[in-house]
């Protein structure tokens, strides 16, 4: 607990990381209290042809969309979709990727080798190529987007953990534990895992930002949550036919994606500086 407080204190000393953390806390707050914060919570899924495509005003802060719904309120509810997709997808990727990385890094036999080759297959094309193929085949829905993103993101964790475990295995304290006859599962859980936690945390934060970008791209291409779900990427796609007149339509969702991704990236950079001073600030991203 003390360690956590220490990390937090160091994080807050870095203004960029503090801003990142603030943005993410704000996002979580908005996602939870969307119905209370929204000015027109009832109009998210309704059609109001008379209020169609109104520019920003006191009543509609960010204007209205093609259905006459308040864009501000839709953005708030969209925060829920974004948070759910990103946290579940990255969470599942963690649950798949970290154990596989631990096993392959530790065993270093044919099994470990085979697992790494499998993860290489998923890294052989950019993530979005596979994610598009998967979410298209499964059909547009939030669950399928989550599935597509986690299936394509886990190898990043595997590769990271694998490399860390391999170098850890040569450390004296691990060799000592092996020599003392400590059961392997105990060594992995109590000695290896805590020592690879830092890079995993950093990668998780940056992975959240990256996943939100990919998820919104899927939404933009029409492969995300089906309408009328207030998914940010899809809102931008919808706005295209009303440009340039309804400029506000695309503005708010784009800024929302930008802010949130930036929040996770800034936090990730800050966490890297605090937790993992070995890695340079510009170290491998994604």
């Amino acid at each position, binding site marked *: 607990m003390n360690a956590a407080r220490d990390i937090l204190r160091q994080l807050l000393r870095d203004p960029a990381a503090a801003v990142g953390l603030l943005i993410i806390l704000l996002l979580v707050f908005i996602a939870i209290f969307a119905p209370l914060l929204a000015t027109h919570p009832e109009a998210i899924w309704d059609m109001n042809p008379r209020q169609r495509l109104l520019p920003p005003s006191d009543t509609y802060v960010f204007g209205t969309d093609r259905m006459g719904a308040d864009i501000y309120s839709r953005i708030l509810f969209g925060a829920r979709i974004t948070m759910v997709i990103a946290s579940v997808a990255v969470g599942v990727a963690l649950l798949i990727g970290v154990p596989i990385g631990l096993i392959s890094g530790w065993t270093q036999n044919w099994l470990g080798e085979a697992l790494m080759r499998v993860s290489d297959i998923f890294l052989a094309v950019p993530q979005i190529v596979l994610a598009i*193929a998967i979410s298209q085949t499964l059909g547009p829905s939030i669950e399928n987007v989550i599935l597509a993103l986690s299936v394509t993101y886990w190898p990043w964790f595997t590769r990271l953990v694998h490399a860390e475990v391999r170098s850890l295995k040569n450390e004296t304290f691990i060799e000592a534990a092996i020599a003392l006859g400590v059961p392997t599962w105990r060594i992995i859980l109590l000695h290896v895992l805590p020592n690879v936690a830092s890079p995993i945390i950093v990668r998780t934060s940056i992975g959240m930002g990256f996943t939100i970008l990919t998820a919104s791209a899927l939404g933009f291409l029409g492969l995300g949550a089906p309408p009328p779900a207030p998914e940010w990427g899809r809102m931008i796609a919808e706005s295209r036919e009303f440009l340039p007149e309804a400029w506000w339509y695309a503005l708010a969702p*784009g800024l929302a994606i930008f802010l949130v991704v930036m929040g996770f990236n800034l936090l990730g950079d800050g966490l890297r500086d605090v937790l993992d001073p070995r890695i340079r600030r510009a170290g491998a991203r994604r």
Partner: protein
Amino acid sequence: MRILALILQRIAWLVPTLAGLVAVVFFISRVIPADPVAKLAGETASRAQIELLREKLGLDRPLLVQLVDYYRQLLSGDLGTSLFTTRPVWDDLYARLPATIELTIVAMMIAVVIGIPLGVVSALYRNTIIDHVLRIITVAGLAVASFWLALVLQLYFAMDLGWLPLQARITGFPPPSITGFYIVDTLVEGNFTRFRNVVAHLTLPAFTLAFPALATVVRFTRAGVLETLQKNFVVYQRAMGIPSGLIVWKYVLRNSLISTVTQIGLLFGILLAGTVVIETVFQWPGIGAYAFEAILQSDYAAVMGFTVYAGVVFGIVNLVVDIGHAILDPRGTGA
């Protein structure tokens, strides 16, 4: 010799990896609820007609048999026939390849030519206002959704100011096809009106595509230069009174670029992934837009063809980068 061994080893790994990739996408694309055969046959087709078509396309056989067949087909250089354009996928990809290569190369050039000097400047003026501004730009470059950036740029430069065309690759007739790269072809042809037209069309998509890669280049160059600046030889050169401009642009930059060069594979991945979205937004007649169309139509052969293309291109680029790295910096070769 060691480098040759490395190359052979990497090529040997590339083949099973690509085979695995093909298998993964193959199974994903065949285990679908949507039935492309029914779609292709049309809504009025009877059940028997659909089955006949399925049989004709060979889609009624066991999946494993289809996969083995597909491998055999790939090995003979055949990517199959697109269900929707009814042309060989290879021909479709080949026809669209120049558009994508042209866009990607220009974007890569923008990222490198602008990114490296910015990175050096950012490192030299560390923690000054210049560095902070550049840091904000790079952070933004990695956080902005490319399709949104594309729309904003379209909105401002094409719709509002009218300076640049909204989309497509050219207005009017394309230049006579010599290389397929419009920039080269218009220059060879000597038609400068058409050349300007092509450049204008390229500007927005290439810049949008380049933006995240640019941000990455700036970050890596900055970090590399900062690290090199602390090395002993730099201190020595300073002590020898060598002008600092010469030190930085000649000696420091060369040493710090090794890390940037090794990231070209990563950059290329960013660009390759970007083409799907950017080409769709700008209606750029390249492979990315083709892949997206193919996916929307559940066009097996075309989706597979694109994936194989992406895997091969990505694999080769990474191979070349690894070889380059082994030559530049033989210490890490190991194997």
